[in-house]
């Protein structure tokens, strides 16, 4: 009887107030080691696979990585110039802009929390400063957001979870909408666009930054299907996530600077002065 009452109070409290989180993180000290224990076989298999890699294949991989590195470096050179230009233009428009984000690489633990939910566990928690609602990325695009942060692990809700929605923007024309998870690992749904919306298969969807959780401009998905039915107000649109949701083991947790940089910084002020002088 006591147990029943205690669990019901717990249920009510957990639903209503976040103060119970301290209890959850205390209990997680007993439970988190189990997650690492279950993950152990996967880690061992991966490490042995790494250690018995042949010299040839390692050399090949090294070469490929070096080429990639070179290509990215070249692209970054241009990127910094573009960024400067962007800052200048925004200063001219008297607009604020946001600085770059800080990332933390976290590794997936191969455990299975509950069926029908797209929630994964990673090995970084509040000890590393992770907090709920942080965006999570991989090398190709947005993965999801931190759902619950415990001391040693944290739970991440993927963008394909049926309970997850992310504000997006069509990269081609800036059309704003919301992408909702479908429950399948390779599918997002865009349920709120009218039948005559300017969107077509192949369009890249990027984060719009409107919800406040996700920083602007990260690729989310590619539209792959657009069915407009004349008798319905909304079109049926589906998209494939860019991130490799079911294959990646390394994820990046992002800290975006919440305070925008002041309208005109010192350096841009100087540049503006220079520009004025030139015009004279």
């Amino acid at each position, binding site marked *: 009887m006591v*147990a*029943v009452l205690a669990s019901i*109070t717990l249920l009510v409290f*957990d*639903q209503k107030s976040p103060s119970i989180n301290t209890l959850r993180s205390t*209990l997680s000290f*007993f439970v988190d080691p*189990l*997650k690492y224990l279950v993950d152990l076989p996967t880690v061992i298999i991966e490490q042995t696979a790494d250690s018995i890699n042949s010299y040839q294949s390692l050399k090949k991989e090294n070469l490929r990585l070096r080429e990639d590195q070179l290509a990215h470096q070249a692209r970054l050179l241009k990127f910094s110039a573009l960024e400067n230009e962007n800052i200048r233009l925004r200063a001219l428009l008297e607009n604020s802009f946001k600085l770059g984000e800080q990332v933390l690489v976290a590794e997936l633990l191969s*455990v299975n929390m509950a069926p029908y939910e797209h929630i994964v566990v990673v090995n970084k928690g509040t000890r590393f400063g992770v907090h709920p609602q942080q965006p999570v990325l991989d090398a190709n695009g947005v993965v999801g957001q931190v759902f619950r942060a415990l001391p040693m692990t944290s739970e991440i809700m993927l963008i394909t979870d049926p309970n997850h929605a992310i504000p997006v923007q069509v990269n081609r024309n800036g059309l704003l909408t919301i992408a909702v998870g479908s429950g399948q690992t390779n599918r997002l749904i865009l349920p709120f666009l009218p039948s005559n919306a300017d969107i077509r298969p192949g369009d890249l969807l990027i984060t719009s930054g409107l919800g406040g959780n996700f920083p602007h401009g990260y690729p989310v998905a590619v539209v792959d299907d657009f069915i407009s039915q004349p008798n319905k107000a909304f079109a049926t649109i589906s998209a494939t996530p860019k991130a490799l949701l079911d294959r990646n083991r390394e994820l990046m947790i992002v800290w975006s600077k919440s305070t925008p940089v002041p309208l005109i910084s010192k350096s841009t002020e100087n540049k503006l002065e220079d520009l004025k002088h030139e015009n004279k």
Partner: protein
Amino acid sequence: MKTNNSSGFIQISISLALAMCLRILPLPESFVAFNPDWVLLTLIYWSLTLPERAGIFHAWTFGLLTDVLTGRLLGQYALAYALVIYLCINLHKRLRNFPMLQQGLFIFFCLLLSQLLLFFIKNIQHPAQLHATFWLPVFTGTLVWPIVYGVLRLVRLPQSFR
């Protein structure tokens, strides 16, 4: 006698920890729905055989730990497990003498009860859609009960000889 007590405690704790590991085992997508509730099965076994040692308090504590483990609302597994174990402890004398088939039927209803409670709580939280696969763990749980029973009996036997 004292050493006996502590060894029972260790066995119960370790078996429950292993059951919790099985609960979050990374299975292929198509098998996930079949994964039975190992923790509850283990708790039922211990409450039938050692009701004075593994009681409602045990069930409640490990239910709470399972809640944290699987990221549920705190207290839902705790509630389900405590109620099921209360039933088991009340009926343990009769259940011990039941033949396997009848015992299996009882286990089936225990698992069904726990699953029903979980569904009930989930529904209060936000109206949930009922999938037919939601009930699969009940059936697979009943099917693996003889295995759990056999393995845990092997674990306990050295103690009963003493």
